[in-house]
């Protein structure tokens, strides 16, 4: 495995160490070294937002802790849920007295732990609401949206919830606008290579040269179809079609787009992909009002990309445009 590592079993501890050393003015650990919060947390009088999940997805999840984004993150081992205890530490450290939103991806382990943490937080008198990112169209058919996994689209939810909270919204208001965004959010991805979890030392799955898997999950969960690696434009067609159909996007709708690299795929390829995405949407009279391209949710060095579309309304645009700043991302 061609990795810059020391002890693979200390991968997460060491990378957190590096992050805390690099960004001491912006981040701090709340007791538990896996509970990372804004250095200035809690922000009294502001709804706080907690997230969390497995490691190996930077800038997800830790990279979105910052002003106008989320207040704290519980960090798990690679591709594994953090503990409820870490989540509780985060919750207590960020609570500013107006309640805490748990905003995270729809994975079994994370759900169990966040639910348990919410139970423990309630014992401590902290009001908790929960929204789960479930934007991956490929992970369950239409009608079963609640079973879907959460992938790169959560970036938009962080931005929107974070901006609403920063603007002084109540927990109920933050939940309402974030749920509306979540209901209008879809992602579809393609994997071109596996990655290697350091402690495991072998690829998460096998994918022969010249093949791709449409809809594969970011931990190697099976997708909707494996086939010959298609040209970029055909991949764009397939991703856009799936999202349009699922989201019932029609002429006159306007969207924000996120073209996300999974790790090894160069930015150059993301722009080639977007070229066709934009063309397809224009043909259908669906303007792309905002677009971000780059690495927003990765799987270590997996090759591949995902496309996220968010149907916009005026309030969502305003929240997307609000300032935000973390050590990993600046609006």
């Amino acid at each position, binding site marked *: 495995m061609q990795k810059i590592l020391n002890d693979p079993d200390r991968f997460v501890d060491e990378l957190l160490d590096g992050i805390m050393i690099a960004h001491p003015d912006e981040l701090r650990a709340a007791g538990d070294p896996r509970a990372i919060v804004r250095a200035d947390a809690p922000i009294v009088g502001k709804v706080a937002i907690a997230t969390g999940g497995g490691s190996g997805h930077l800038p997800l999840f830790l990279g979105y802790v910052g002003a106008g984004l989320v207040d704290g993150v519980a960090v*798990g081992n690679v591709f594994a849920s953090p*503990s*409820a205890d*870490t989540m509780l530490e985060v919750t207590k450290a960020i609570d500013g007295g107006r309640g805490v939103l748990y905003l995270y991806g729809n994975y*079994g382990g994370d*759900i*169990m*732990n966040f639910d348990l943490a919410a139970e423990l937080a309630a014992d401590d008198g902290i009001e908790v609401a929960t929204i789960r990112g479930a934007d991956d169209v490929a992970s369950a058919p239409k009608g079963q949206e609640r079973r879907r996994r959460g992938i790169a689209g959560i970036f938009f939810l962080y931005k929107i919830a974070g901006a609403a909270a920063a603007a002084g919204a109540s927990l109920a208001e933050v939940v309402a606008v974030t749920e509306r965004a979540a209901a209008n959010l879809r992602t579809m991805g393609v994997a071109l290579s596996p990655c290697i979890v350091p402690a495991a030392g072998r690829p998460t799955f096998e994918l022969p040269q010249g093949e791709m898997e449409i809809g594969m999950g970011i931990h190697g969960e099976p997708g909707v179809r494996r086939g010959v690696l298609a040209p970029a434009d055909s991949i764009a067609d397939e991703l856009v079609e799936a999202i349009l159909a699922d989201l019932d996007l029609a002429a006159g709708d306007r969207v924000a787009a996120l073209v996300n690299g999974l790790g090894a795929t160069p930015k150059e390829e993301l722009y080639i992909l977007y070229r066709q995405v934009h063309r397809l949407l224009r043909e259908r009279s669906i303007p792309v009002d905002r677009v971000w391209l780059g690495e927003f949710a990765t799987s270590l060095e997996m090759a591949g990309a995902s496309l996220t579309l968010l149907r916009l309304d005026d309030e969502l645009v305003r929240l997307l445009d609000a300032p935000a700043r973390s050590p990993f991302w600046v609006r």
Partner: protein
Amino acid sequence: MTTLSGVIAGVAEDLAGARDELNRLDGVAGDGDLGVTVAAGSAAVLALLPELADEEAGALLRRCGRELARAAPSTSGTLIATALMAAGRVSGEPGETVTAFVARAASVAFDSISERGRASLGDRTMLDALGPAVTALEAGAATGASIVDALLAAAAAAAAGVEDTRTMEPKVGRAAWLAGRAAGNVDAGAQLVALILRSAAGRVSRDPDQRP
């Protein structure tokens, strides 16, 4: 009389020996860490127990659950923690036998796991061992069986449930992505539940006060 704390300590000690077996079983269709998780959780609970000497049973279970959640934050660790905390909130009813009380607490534990993990019987999880065990405990309560007999029956039912997982398709968690890999093997978490019950039954029945 055997204290609850003593039984828990005994189970924790017994589980230490199952580390490799549980890792191996979890490795078939999971990530192979269940033994590690169980060892870490057992050690943490063992270390905590002396502090809890003065707690009543419910608080004892809740504190152990809390500790497990901290020290063994995997799927099974969290679910068993949830179960202990839920069971710890069950209080005895007037005139209830120990067996009836334990059966009721076990049933609450089952429901809490099912709810938190969004899984049901037949999904090839620890529930497929716990479910039959709860049924056996309830049958024991209905027939007035002693807690020792009821626990032995529950352990046997759990072991049978484990065997049944060999032919089940995994529906939740990691193993569900890898359908097929599990075929023919027993589920690791179910085996863990069976081992816990066998150990508990053994610890209780070895206690002089419980001998018939």
